[in-house]
């Protein structure tokens, strides 16, 4: 167990590698109840969120969800999150645990008449069930990614969200805090393996999902981070003007994905000769090689370029690759 954002979290149960493989090949469950939940409700909830979130909220219907960013005036990323449209005028934001309070304050400070912002994190538990066989094992019908519906598992009412952080088919199940243990047991009873923070990190890194605090943050803008696709630059939102400028001029550096071509495992904070530093690095259980992400000068940002990582004083080469690093053969 390790402390994480005020929670005691398991790094691993059986081991990072078997847990990682279980999610890639079958199904695994992560307790992600540490994540924050913020509700925004009211006749002007849409207006408020449309002005603080980067993606176009008008595209999200009731039953839908969207990956989006909370941005600052510099185009930096206050947080990345998923917004769910619960009812016409009611939205649920699932945010990173470490940013829960700052996100809440950020949105509340910008609150407008006709919108109500509430931190409801303590009321809910969230279990991410991920892997190619996750839906089958849970007895759930497949649904489109980024949708949600109410469902039921062994008599427990759950919000079933077709979202996740692993690159696999899967769901995130949200229920009331009182049903936490019952839901966990119901999931395990279906032969789904428990998985910890360690596997969660290697899984998301293989598919290049950024981790806030490592790869993205208030001082890294969405365009340089490769998240331009989450920014509706034709609408007005916090930092939109700066992001339009960066896009026009072209970013000076870019968040790239890379695979080691020499021995060694890149780790967060290791310098990259061609610009910045490694923001996330680990061993890829699927590729059996060191992989990572980091910022480099834009000139070195194209797939196929060679970069050099300083692995505790030893220069080791890596190749910039197209994201995601790992993709299932279809």
């Amino acid at each position, binding site marked *: 167990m390790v402390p994480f954002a005020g929670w005691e979290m398991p790094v691993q149960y059986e081991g990072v590698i078997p847990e990682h493989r279980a999610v890639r090949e079958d199904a695994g469950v992560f307790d992600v109840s540490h994540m924050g939940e913020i509700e925004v409700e009211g006749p002007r909830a849409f207006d408020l969120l449309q002005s603080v979130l980067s993606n176009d909220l008008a595209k999200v219907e009731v039953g839908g969800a969207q990956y989006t960013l909370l941005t600052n005036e510099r185009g930096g990323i206050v947080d990345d999150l998923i917004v769910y449209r619960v009812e016409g005028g009611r939205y649920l934001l699932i945010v990173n645990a470490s940013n829960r309070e700052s996100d809440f304050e950020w949105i509340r400070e910008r609150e407008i008449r006709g919108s109500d912002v509430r931190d409801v994190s303590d009321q809910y538990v969230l279990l991410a069930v991920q892997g190619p066989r996750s839906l089958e094992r849970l007895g759930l019908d497949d649904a489109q990614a980024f949708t949600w519906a109410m469902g039921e598992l062994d008599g427990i009412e759950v919000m079933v969200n077709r979202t996740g952080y692993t690159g696999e088919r899967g769901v995130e199940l949200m229920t009331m805090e009182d049903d936490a243990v019952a839901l966990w047991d119901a999931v395990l009873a279906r032969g789904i393996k428990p998985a910890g923070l360690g596997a969660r990190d290697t899984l998301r890194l293989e598919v290049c999902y950024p981790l806030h605090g490592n790869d993205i943050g208030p001082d890294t803008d969405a365009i340089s981070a490769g998240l331009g696709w989450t920014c509706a630059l034709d609408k007005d939102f916090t930092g939109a003007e700066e992001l339009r400028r960066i896009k026009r001029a072209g970013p000076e550096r870019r968040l790239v994905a890379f695979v080691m071509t020499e021995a060694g495992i890149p780790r967060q904070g290791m310098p990259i000769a061609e610009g910045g530093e490694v923001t996330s690095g680990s061993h890829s*259980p699927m590729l059996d090689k060191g992989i990572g992400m980091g910022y480099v000068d834009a000139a070195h940002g194209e797939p196929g370029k060679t970069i050099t990582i300083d692995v505790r004083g030893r220069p080791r080469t890596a190749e910039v690759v197209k994201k995601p690093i790992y993709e299932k053969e279809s």
Partner: protein
Amino acid sequence: VAAAESYPDDLKYHSEHDWARVEGDEAVLGITWFAQDALGELVHYEPPEDGADVSQGSSYGEVESVKAVSDLISPLSGAVVAVNQKVVDAPETVNEDPYGDGWLVRIRLGESSEVDGLMDAQAYQAFVADQ
């Protein structure tokens, strides 16, 4: 498949969880079952160069699991005469067989009297029980 816990009697042990098998004026070095269990499945071995000098209590290389890097602390001083290429190619060999196929380096001893300062299996086991 991970090995079962054991601490062979013919080895000498260092408090940093490294073992030495002394053979004449040479010694084979590795990490103990306790060390590999604490690290988890190894995914990288950064060996010393052939001929490199190693000194007792100092790092001669690194092993890494998915989550952590660990220095290899030499239980004895000497010069590297062989590196186990099998572990370079398949680091999980250490988890499977920490005292056999999972050896890390062979050294020519520099200071053979250092051997007397190491723990025997019984003392090391008592030491591990306190960790």
